[in-house]
């Protein structure tokens, strides 16, 4: 039994075991710690001793025992005089019906971990641990912070859940859209964190991408009526499909137009395109779904010059209606330039100049630089590339922007 197989098994089992335990004992906080300890025990024992016949029951038993131990030592602390007689728990198995309909627990956990009372870093950390079954050390390594920092984010998150009185239940119907949006935002944040990586620690971090896709797939399965869940999964698939081509052998960023499209993952593209097509036919166009549709148009072009830019412009028009924000307008500028020429695109870029959030953002200068280069205004383009390089806080982006600028040197 390889540890990889065990790991997959444990990650899938984590939310189910936690759900059963919380339903039985309440106290999400203590149950989550107990499950984490059971997962750690399994991760060390199973690869050597083999997976038990009933892995779910094994985890539940160990977690329940940890929970009892914890309560016992707590009450011992409170009252050392009186011996608290608690019987050793027997082999625990979920009662029939106790697990509830398949996956409901996972969905409840996602809602709980992404509760609006929690800060974004706490939501992310707690979701990866309680629903994803990752250890604190793994999450810390992926986000490049010390383990103690990540542990603190998790315990703060739990504390917030406790003080907010949040329950392990489905949100009320009128709250559901906002709560679901919060879950999707957390999953997308995890995805981006893994996807944009291109450093020496890339391996650990791209694991986040796989984890986000796995959880988005789960969310889509559990919310079949939600177009945005499908959109989110499709967007991740259609983006992740390009991962092998987005950097060259030296780790430098390769822009979409110059990527070797034969290196795109066709299986992911096909799944994403099918998902977008099917969902658009039955659901209103939400932001994730429209972004997925844009990614699909890119991914369907086998050569950059075959890209249907007019369709992309139309999709951006829809996107800026359902989610108006200057970053969408900026991306739209690129599409407009490709469809109608650089001057038309530059007009859109200029329309954002009065927005201070944009002019201190490297992306605005980078897009402007590209379009100026397209228009043949090389001196201005060079200055804009340099300004973008100065403003970015990403090393690969700075390197890319500097090399674009250098290409225009006479």
């Amino acid at each position, binding site marked *: 039994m390889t540890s990889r197989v065990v790991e997959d098994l444990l990650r899938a089992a984590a939310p189910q075991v936690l759900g059963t335990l919380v339903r039985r004992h309440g106290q999400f906080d203590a149950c989550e710690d107990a499950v984490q300890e059971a997962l750690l025990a399994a991760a060390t024992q199973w690869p050597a001793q083999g997976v038990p016949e009933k892995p779910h029951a094994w985890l539940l038993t160990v977690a329940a025992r940890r929970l009892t131990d914890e309560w016992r030592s707590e009450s011992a602390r409170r009252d050392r005089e009186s011996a608290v007689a608690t019987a050793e728990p027997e082999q625990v198995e979920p009662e029939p019906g106790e697990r509830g309909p398949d996956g409901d627990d996972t969905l409840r956990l996602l809602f709980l971990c992404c509760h609006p009372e929690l800060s974004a870093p706490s939501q992310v950390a707690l979701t990866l641990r309680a629903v994803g079954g990752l250890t604190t050390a793994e999450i810390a390594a992926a986000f490049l912070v010390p383990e103690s920092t990540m542990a603190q984010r998790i315990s703060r998150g739990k504390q917030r859940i406790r003080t907010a009185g949040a329950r392990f239940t489905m949100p009320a119907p009128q709250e559901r859209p906002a709560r679901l949006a919060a879950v999707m935002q957390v999953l997308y944040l995890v995805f981006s964190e893994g996807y944009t990586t291109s450093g020496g620690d890339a391996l650990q971090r791209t694991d986040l991408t796989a984890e986000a896709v796995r959880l988005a797939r789960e969310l889509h399965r559990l919310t079949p009526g939600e177009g945005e869940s499908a959109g989110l999964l499709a967007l991740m698939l259609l983006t992740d499909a390009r991962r092998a081509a987005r950097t060259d052998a030296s780790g430098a960023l390769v822009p979409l137009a110059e990527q070797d499209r034969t290196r795109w993952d066709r299986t992911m593209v096909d799944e994403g395109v099918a998902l977008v097509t099917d969902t658009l036919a039955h659901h209103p166009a939400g932001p994730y779904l429209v972004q997925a549709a844009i990614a699909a148009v890119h991914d369907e072009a086998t050569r950059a010059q075959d890209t249907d830019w007019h369709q992309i412009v139309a999709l951006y028009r829809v996107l800026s209606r359902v989610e108006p924000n200057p970053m969408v307008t900026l991306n739209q500028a690129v599409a407009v330039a490709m469809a109608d020429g650089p001057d038309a695109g530059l007009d859109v870029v200029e329309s954002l100049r009065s927005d201070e959030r944009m002019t201190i953002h490297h992306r605005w200068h980078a897009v402007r630089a590209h379009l100026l280069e397209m228009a043949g205004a090389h001196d201005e383009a060079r200055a804009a590339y340099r300004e973008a390089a100065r403003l970015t806080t990403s090393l*690969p982006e700075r390197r*890319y922007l500097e090399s674009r600028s250098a290409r225009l040197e006479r």
Partner: protein
Amino acid sequence: MKYMLLIHNRPGFLDELTEAERTELFGDVDRIMGELTESGEMVGGQALADPSTAVTVRGVDGRPVVTDGPFAESKEQFAGYVEVDCASVERAVEIASSWPDVRFGGGVMEVRAVMQDSGAEM
């Protein structure tokens, strides 16, 4: 987003403080470090030895030349740093503003974003 809070202060300023002020200063540092750990924003930090113990290496005619002492001649010298992972530059500035060196002894805090190794293709 990760930020470095670079602490610059005047070497020897601690000696000019009263015992009570020194106790307050160190107490403040401990408290802020504790709060940052508690809030899950702390990444790390170090204090540096006195600048008079520094060794400076300069390139002269393409060759390294080693001299004793710090390289900068300014009144304030680099004394240490705190690295935080926080929600915004405003929050990083807020933490820097609370640093006791600013209040005692005319310390200077510089807030700089830390470059990431991840980036978006364009």
